[in-house]
């Protein structure tokens, strides 16, 4: 049993699944467009929540939000289902495949056998598409992989019912209604406004102010936690920023690609300039990662080094503050 589905590799899983499912339904929309309209760009620092024994930092919004916002801004209808038992979850999935519907799933990464061991952590907000089933396997299109792959029935059960934070509970989703004409222009503007609001939010742990907060904390890390822990925290931060799924530079390059596409659709030259500026800011995030990696590579922690990267981060935050103010102006 196999349904027609074309796999496209993407940088980030949720955008990729959304873009692939919509393309499959005749709505040609790129990954950066999904990310931009869905207001995926974000920054949040949650020192009281620990991920892999380090404070949680995220460069994106909560799982599921990108696709949900995209859907409401383009008037698409997405059906989402969660299940309490694996049997029902499988039944519903098989039913969809029978009806020729490729289906998006939220899954845990730990039991994805096609990932390298090093990448198999208990992270539950990964997304993929199932587009077929054989006697032994499910046919999988995982957007971060170059080509399609498979999981055994047993493996798929495990990843759908992974436990812990953001437990997927078998969640599956697929578009059930797509309007003939979508109004990209107003959707883009809504998406940008939302992102500017998030990044300039008057909350200490969110957006630009969140980045500044982390910058202040970094200065204290080596004294407060000792070298080893401080280095670990820093390495975790770089992983959240650069690992597979971010497209590099904490999603800044995907966002810059979105602004470029948006400038053509809206006929707004200023957005093109802002796209270039976002690229440069992304490059600075990459420089920050290089400097941070020097610290944890040498396993030393001179306070100077921590102060130096904290300065770098602060300067990025200041540039982003100016950037998002300009962006807000450019579309109003």
């Amino acid at each position, binding site marked *: 049993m196999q349904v027609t589905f074309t796999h496209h590799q993407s940088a980030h899983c949720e955008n990729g699944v959304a873009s692939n499912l919509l393309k499959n339904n005749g709505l040609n929309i790129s990954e950066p467009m999904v990310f931009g309209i869905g207001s995926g760009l974000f920054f949040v620092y949650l020192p009281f929540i620990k991920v892999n024994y380090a404070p949680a930092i995220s460069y994106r919004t909560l799982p599921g939000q990108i696709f949900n916002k995209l859907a409401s801004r383009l008037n698409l209808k997405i059906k989402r289902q969660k299940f309490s038992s694996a049997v029902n979850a499988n039944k519903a999935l098989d039913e969809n495949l029978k009806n020729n519907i490729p289906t998006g799933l939220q899954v845990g990464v730990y039991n994805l056998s096609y990932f*390298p061991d090093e990448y*198999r952590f208990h992270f539950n907000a990964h997304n993929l598409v199932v587009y077929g089933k054989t006697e032994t396997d499910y046919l999988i299109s995982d957007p971060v992989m170059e080509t399609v792959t498979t999981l055994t029935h047993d493996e798929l059960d495990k990843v759908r019912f992974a*436990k812990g934070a953001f437990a997927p509970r078998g969640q599956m989703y697929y578009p059930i209604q797509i309007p003939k004409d979508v109004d990209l222009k107003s959707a883009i503007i809504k998406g940008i406004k939302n992102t500017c609001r998030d990044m300039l939010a008057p909350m200490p742990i969110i957006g630009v102010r969140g980045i500044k907060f982390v910058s202040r904390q970094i200065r204290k890390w080596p004294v407060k936690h000792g070298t080893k822990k401080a280095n670990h925290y820093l390495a975790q931060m770089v*992983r959240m920023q*650069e690992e*597979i799924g971010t497209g590099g530079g904490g999603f800044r390059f995907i966002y810059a690609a979105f602004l*470029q596409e948006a400038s053509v659709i809206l006929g707004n030259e200023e957005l093109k300039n802002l796209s270039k500026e976002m690229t440069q800011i992304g490059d600075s995030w*990459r420089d920050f990662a*290089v400097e941070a990696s020097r610290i944890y590579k040498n396993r030393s922690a001179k306070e100077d080094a921590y102060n130096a990267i904290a300065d770098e981060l602060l300067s990025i935050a200041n540039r982003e503050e100016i950037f998002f103010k300009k962006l807000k102006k450019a579309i109003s």
Partner: protein
Amino acid sequence: MEKEKVPQDKGNLTKNNLKELLYATDENGEYTTTLSTGWEPKTIALSNSIDEINERIAEAKMKVEIGEASPICYYMEVNKMDLTILASYVGMWKWRVKRHFKPAVFAKLSDSILKKYADTFEISVEKLKNFKTD
């Protein structure tokens, strides 16, 4: 980031022959996509995390051997879990799981409780009871 500057370092993806997709600008400054095999700063970040896990495993193993912790504690680390994740898998309160880290409490656990842990760690109850590492 310009396309020709996209790093192609050897990384953790290389051995599975995987490449990740990145957004970068071409010679006209237009965005395009390109593949990368890896980038050193994040390879180090990841190996740093893996070293960390291995240290935790070694420490847990030692604690079990000297009778300071139960094997549950060791297998939790081997499976890259923490207390929250393990409690969620076995469907018990965190404080209860934490109590099972004590060797004296562990010794009195019923087989049905042990089975919950064993299933989560994908090992047999026998293996969980008779702690041996190789």
